[in-house]
């Protein structure tokens, strides 16, 4: 008992100088607060309590961030099989609940609808990191150059495909694409060579071909792609949303029409889902190019911090987790903002920390909490196994 206390004291002394990544946390808080403001702006004339609801999720998310920060991320390796199993069960469970808006993505829990796919993103990142990082082996240096075997590539593909296909069937094409991007990014960071990456891209191409040939995409999913070229498609639905979004952003111009300004598109639901997937539209309309760029800068800082965390991680496992999270956030931001300005298809991918939504917000803060844990644990403690 004394030995354990002594050990803990030693660890505490070594890590005294390791503080939470304040830039990371600060950016998270700024984006969340700004998100609440924009949700309020987009819904204040409709009379819903969207912002109040989201405040609860933000509070819960920050607690999750704090808890995850204080759990040694290396512990996740041991609970990974259980976590994976629970996630899979949840992903299958959604098919037993009634459709909402033509899709089965949610498990109703009364006070909110749990979206297991959001949790799956974090679990898959940890699982991939665990798979691609060197195991406790004296032969390999945890931070040295390293190659991946083809077997590893295949396993990684499997880790992503199982949840990816389930989510594709919900259907939620956008989220399943997030998994593809995470896989590609983490394999690259994890040491895959060009041939392996090319092979992976070929598999993706083949998959796309199969989906195309066998008409696995529904008509509205194809419309979402085609509408980028032809704005007249689905003029009451997706085409309307996209046109309205572009009109709103265009009228924002350099400095915006003013926060809470009268007659805005996003203030009066003329852009459907302006508090949700189209929250960036509300920012760009009301605060203009300046506001939009500031939001993007915040995300650049966030991604930059995650890459810094990755490069400072004590082991490859942590580095891979941090870079996987960076990939996830960058892809979300790119697809979401790209959608509102008409260069990416409307796939229903929300904007991290800003879009309304409980599961998404909490899984994002969980991810950042884990990354923060990687940051906090970056300094080795004497006597610890450095290679894991």
């Amino acid at each position: 008992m004394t030995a354990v206390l002594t050990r803990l004291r030693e660890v505490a002394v070594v890590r005294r100088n390791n503080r939470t990544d304040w830039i990371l946390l600060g950016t998270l808080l700024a984006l969340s607060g700004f998100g609440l403001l924009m949700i309020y702006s987009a819904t204040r004339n409709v009379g819903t309590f969207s912002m109040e609801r989201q405040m609860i999720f933000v509070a819960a998310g920050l607690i999750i961030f704090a808890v995850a920060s204080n759990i040694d991320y290396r512990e996740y390796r041991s609970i990974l099989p259980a976590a994976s199993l629970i996630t899979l069960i949840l992903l299958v469970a959604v098919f037993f609940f009634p459709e909402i808006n033509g899709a089965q993505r949610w498990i109703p829990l009364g006070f909110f609808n749990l979206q297991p796919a959001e949790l799956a993103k974090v679990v898959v990142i940890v699982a991939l990191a665990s798979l691609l990082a060197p195991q406790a082996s004296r032969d390999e240096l945890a931070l040295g150059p390293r190659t991946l075997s083809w077997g590893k590539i295949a396993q990684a593909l499997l880790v992503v495909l199982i949840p990816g296909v389930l989510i594709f069937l919900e259907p939620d094409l956008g989220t399943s694409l997030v998994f593809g991007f995470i896989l590609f990014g983490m394999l690259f960071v994890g040491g895959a060579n060009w041939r392996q990456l090319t092979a992976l891209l070929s598999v993706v191409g083949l998959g796309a071909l199969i989906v195309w040939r066998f008409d696995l995409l529904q008509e509205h999913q194809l419309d979402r792609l085609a509408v980028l070229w032809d704005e007249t498609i689905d003029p009451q639905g997706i085409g309307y949303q996209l046109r309205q979004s572009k009109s709103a952003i265009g009228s924002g111009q350099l400095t915006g029409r003013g926060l809470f300004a009268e007659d805005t598109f996003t203030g009066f639901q003329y852009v459907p889902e302006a508090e949700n997937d189209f929250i960036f539209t509300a920012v760009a309309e009301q605060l203009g190019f300046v506001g939009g760029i500031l939001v993007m800068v915040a995300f650049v800082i966030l991604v930059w911090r995650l890459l810094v965390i990755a490069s400072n991680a004590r082991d490859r496992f942590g580095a891979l987790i941090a870079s996987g999270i960076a990939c996830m956030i960058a892809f979300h931001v790119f697809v979401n903002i790209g959608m509102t300005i008409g260069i990416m298809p409307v796939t229903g991918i929300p904007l991290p920390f800003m879009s309304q939504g409980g599961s998404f917000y909490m899984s994002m803060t969980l991810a950042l909490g884990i990354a923060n844990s990687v940051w906090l644990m970056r300094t080795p403690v004497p006597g610890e196994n450095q290679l894991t």
Partner: protein
Amino acid sequence: MKFAVRLSILGMAFIAMFAILGLRLWFVQVAQGPDIAQAAEDQTWLIKTTHASRGDIYDRNGVPLVTSRLVPAVFIDRTFVQPEDRDILIQRISSLLAMEPSDLQLLYDEAGTNGRFQVATVNTTAAYQISEQLATLPGVEIVNVPERVYLSGDTMAHVIGHLGLPDQADLDEREGLDPTVRIGKLGVEKYYDEVLQGTSGTYEYRVRRGEIIDEQPAVPPVPGSSIILTTDSELQTVVELALEEGIRLSNEVKDQDRAAGEDVFSETSRAAAVVLDPQTFEVLAMASVPDFDPQLFVTGIDSETFSALNESFAFNNLAVSGLYPPASTFKAITYSAFLEKGLPLPADTDGIDPANREVNCDGQLIFELNDGSAEVKTDWYAPSELGWLDLHGALENSCNKYFWSVGLGAWQAREQIGENVLQDWAKELGYGSATGIDLANEAPGIVPTRELFEEWAEYQRENPDEPPRLDPGRLNPELASPFFGGDLMDFAIGQGAFTATPLQAAVSYAALANGGEVMEPRVVDRVIGPDGELIEDVTSPVVRTVDISEATRRDLLTDLNKVVTTGTAAAAFEDFGPGLEMVGGKTGTGETTATRDNHAWFVGVAPIDNPQYVVAVIIEEGGSGGAIAAPVARHILQYLMNNEPTPILAGDPTD
């Protein structure tokens, strides 16, 4: 590759992604922003249109024929309907109007976000009921909309026309057409649609959550201009009744013929007539039987009624779209060509005296073909022994042999006088091309020539599967041409492949009667504004002036008078009353095929000293011109010449 390098590459990829977003955002907001903002600003304004009242239509004496009245209609403006109220609103309105909720829902969905649409016109009681409940029916409006009223029923239906919703072809053809507003589909309603239509009024406003937050002053609709026709509704009624009497008479005669064991192929059911002023080319009356009531298209016509009418040709204005061989009525044109062009009669042919320009009208023309073999044309209808006749007697008695001889003479002399002398003359007088009347769907007709037959023959050789226009024997490659001398001879009596509309027959007589001026006939006299001010005085432009000497004109009119006094129409005009010496005309009996009855024709002119009226009458498959069409025309001419019209009884069968 080192781990740090890989992380850096990933970072650069992220920077590239963000750079793309930033550039695109710059493009949308700053580079294009002002344009998009302007377009967006325009887009938030909603426009409510108020349909203009269509202009009225009057006859030449100011008798109102068509007008518009205001009737209440139920509109739904989706701007003021909250999405959650939609279903209950559809339920309530459909039960109030006794319509299927699914039909209303379809209209509702088609109108689109912020759309405003007319649900239905309603009677005053229903309008009152609904307006009592308006407070609890958000988005529902009761608006008075103009509705067409056809005061004249089915009289003059083909000239007036009817309305209908624009189809895809209309929408493609005319820009800015409102697909919910009826447009003219036939007659003057169609031809003058843009004049009658008027300009819709607009009211622009902006709405937020069902509240109007901004508005522009309303622009009231500008009613359409009104039209005064050249037609006289009283005369029109006389003409239409006369045609129906003619059809009845024709069927009566057919019954007698059938009883006598003669071949009768069909019941007579169709007829057409035109009354034209030869000095101005104003159409004084134009009728086509069967007809329809244009009001049917306002209240809604069911498909059964529509197809029954359509199959009976009720929507076809036979006066301008019906094609018939002009038959012996064309002899007046051959007559004038013979005199004006100095056409030769054939030499060395039995029964033809080219020096005295006389022909022995014994019913048979025996002539030689180029190879010397004999050809016989027999006149089955004319009395066989008319004896030797000059041109005047030949017209009076409608002697086919004389006019065949004219055709034969022209054929034999074609190298010297040109092969199309007769056809060109006909074309100058308006045959073979649309007259240009201000009505749609005019048929041009066919004037057969060698060139046309060769064209047809070539087409027929290349498209053997299509129905042939020429007898296959004419395609024999050993023949010099598919067009024969016999074809020109038939043309001279208005037969063969030759077809024309009743209007073309009237136009050619009008030109002959006025000394050679061919104008565009018209049914509209002038266009007036809502306050009666003149907007456009429509006049008929002179299309061509045909060179006809005064002597020929006088001779022709005198001979046309002989037709009704002592010639083929004498029996039909027997009880014309005073002024018969002022009336002229020509009978015609159009041969069709061996299994169809002949078309009965009559084209009349009056008064012959100063022609004011040309009357063309055709009873389709009605029988003999002298027996059936001449009495109908006589009845109309009696009215025109202020005589009491006498009953339509059969005249003598002729030509």
